[in-house]
């Protein structure tokens, strides 16, 4: 039975979202207008236009974007456009056209990459943290601590380079550029101009078309980017989990469980781990923020066509439309994920509601 108190919390949490979203859009808007209208004009005017034609174009754009109005009026015009789904245009070497189309092309790839990374964190990071605490001060624990501490100190691009050197160059077992080997997709009917159809995620599309060799190749291309992302985020999680696990293992109920003869494996995995996970879950917001930020670097190091790769391409090509749209998109994704996590957490742990 969900209590009234929970509903009040949910309502309060959603209401707080409104000022955050207004602030988020205002922040992005201020960024666009910090240099006056120059950035907007530079994005939309064909540089080859000169003289009279250029003046006319400036006039047309001033009309279209209401550049002659006061800034706060412009904000509402801009917000209106954003709310109706018009995010402007982007112009980068990997894609130029409406921002909304760019998002449908790149976002699915990023989602798949992040999910793979999350899976790896769950499969590797959490067992390592538990193992490290259970075997406190053993050589394995020392090793895991040095490993996570070093990872924690490495910028994410270095983790990527280290993996490329280790798995890509020396062992030569995994590909480390792009989403698929070009010769695999040459001449395929559902793959045109570097874009796969219908979902735009090569791995899924290949499975849908029953082309398992391509799917396997796409899967291999996914491993290194997602492993990089996972390792970067994992470093913090292992440290938090080890500390909280050590604390939980000292509790009376763990001692009681041992005394009454519960096998060590069950004590660690059932009694201790579940409770030790609480701080990890609390810090999940930061994990998501880390994943989203890491995506930008990882995708551009591995030339992986997702939102992050598009963002860096926009940065390098002075594409204001791309930068602003991706900032807004990352912001909304992060805000909504944190909201969902908070709500789930409130349902799971009644103490969190206040």
């Amino acid at each position: 039975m969900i209590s009234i108190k929970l509903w009040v919390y949910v309502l309060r949490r959603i209401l707080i979202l409104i000022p955050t979203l207004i602030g988020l859009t205002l922040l992005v808007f201020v960024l666009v207008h910090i240099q006056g209208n120059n950035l907007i004009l530079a994005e939309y005017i064909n540089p080859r236009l000169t003289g009279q034609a250029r003046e006319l174009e400036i006039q047309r754009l001033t009309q279209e974007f209401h550049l002659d109005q006061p800034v706060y009026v412009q904000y509402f015009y801009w917000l209106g456009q954003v709310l109706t789904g018009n995010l402007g245009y982007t112009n980068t070497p990997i894609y130029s056209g409406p921002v909304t189309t760019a998002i449908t092309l790149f976002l699915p790839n990023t989602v798949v990459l992040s999910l793979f990374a999350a899976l790896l964190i769950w499969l590797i990071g959490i067992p390592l943290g538990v193992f490290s605490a259970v075997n406190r001060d053993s050589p394995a624990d020392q090793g895991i601590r040095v490993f996570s501490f070093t990872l924690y100190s490495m910028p994410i691009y270095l983790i990527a380079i280290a993996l490329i050197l280790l798995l890509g160059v020396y062992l030569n077992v995994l590909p480390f550029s792009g989403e698929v080997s070009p010769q695999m997709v040459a001449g395929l009917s559902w793959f045109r101009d570097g874009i796969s159809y219908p979902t735009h995620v090569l791995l899924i599309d290949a499975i849908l078309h029953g082309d398992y060799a391509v799917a396997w190749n796409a899967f291999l291309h996914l491993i290194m980017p997602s492993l990089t992302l996972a390792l970067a985020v994992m470093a913090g999680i292992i440290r938090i989990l080890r500390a909280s696990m050590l604390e939980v293992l000292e509790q009376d109920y763990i001692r009681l469980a041992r005394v009454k003869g519960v096998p060590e494996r069950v004590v660690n995995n059932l009694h201790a781990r579940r409770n030790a996970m609480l701080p990890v879950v609390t810090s999940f917001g930061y994990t998501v923020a880390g994943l989203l930020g890491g995506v930008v670097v990882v995708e551009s190091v591995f030339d992986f066509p997702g939102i992050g790769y598009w963002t860096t391409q926009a940065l390098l090509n002075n594409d204001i439309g791309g930068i602003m749209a991706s900032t807004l998109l990352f912001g909304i994704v992060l805000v909504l994920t944190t909201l969902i996590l908070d709500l789930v957490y409130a349902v799971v742990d009644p103490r969190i509601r206040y």
Partner: protein
Amino acid sequence: MEERTEEGKYSNLILSLKVFFSNRTAVAGMVIFLAYVVDAFIMQFDPRLLGVTNPNQFTYNFVNPVPQPPSSQYPLGTTYPGINLLQAILEAIRVDLGYSMLIVVGGAVIGAVVGILAAYVGGYLDELLMRFTDIFFSIPYLVLAIAVGFALGRSFTSMVIALIIVWWPIYARYTRSLTLSIKESVFVEAAKAAGASMVRIMFKHILPNTLPPVVVQISLDLGSVVGVFATLAFIGFIPNANTPELGYLASLGLNYVQSAPWTVIFPGLAITLFALSVNLMGDGLRDVIDPRRRS
């Protein structure tokens, strides 16, 4: 009476130093950190000591641009286009260290003022300021830094401003939580009873007491800031093509990673070692100020 408190302070300091210096990894971290600081100062004031003539830019050698392996002439080898890696790393440390320091301290100062104001005044101001920090937490920090830096134009100044904008909310939240507990303590009560003004209480009584944990946080953050700064440079956020910066230096060698791995390994090691050393030092400092962790 006064003498005794002086002595008390003194013995407290001795105890703190003892705790810090008994932690061998923390001391090692501090030694490495100091080596980086010394290098930065030499580059700033007398680069000739290390055989560098102009620490503000890379020295190119277009005659032999292809990366050369480490040799007696180039102890760490060279990277494209003919840059002496050892010299370039020594130059770049000054840039990375200096700007990162500026970012963390700038963020800490702004964050501390906002955090103390929010917690001490409380009420609507607290709610307003905290919702304001929420906005900055709602964008992944790397994306926010890219967007701000982009809007301000590509320069070190805009990178610094962008990262201060990213970092101050963390300190605002931290000092707010510290202030919330400090403001309930007896000495604040006493200051209030003695008629001290609000501003005086905030900055004369509360601020100094938030300092030790904030300084520890600064030393822990320095490692992350250096990483983010280098990451921005690595993905192409660099004012001009011959700026000595560790992330950018690594990106120069990226095309040669298969044939000449030292071009990315050494700049990478330089930055990892720095981040490791400040993290170790920060952990040691945290043990000093938090008696519960002294065991």
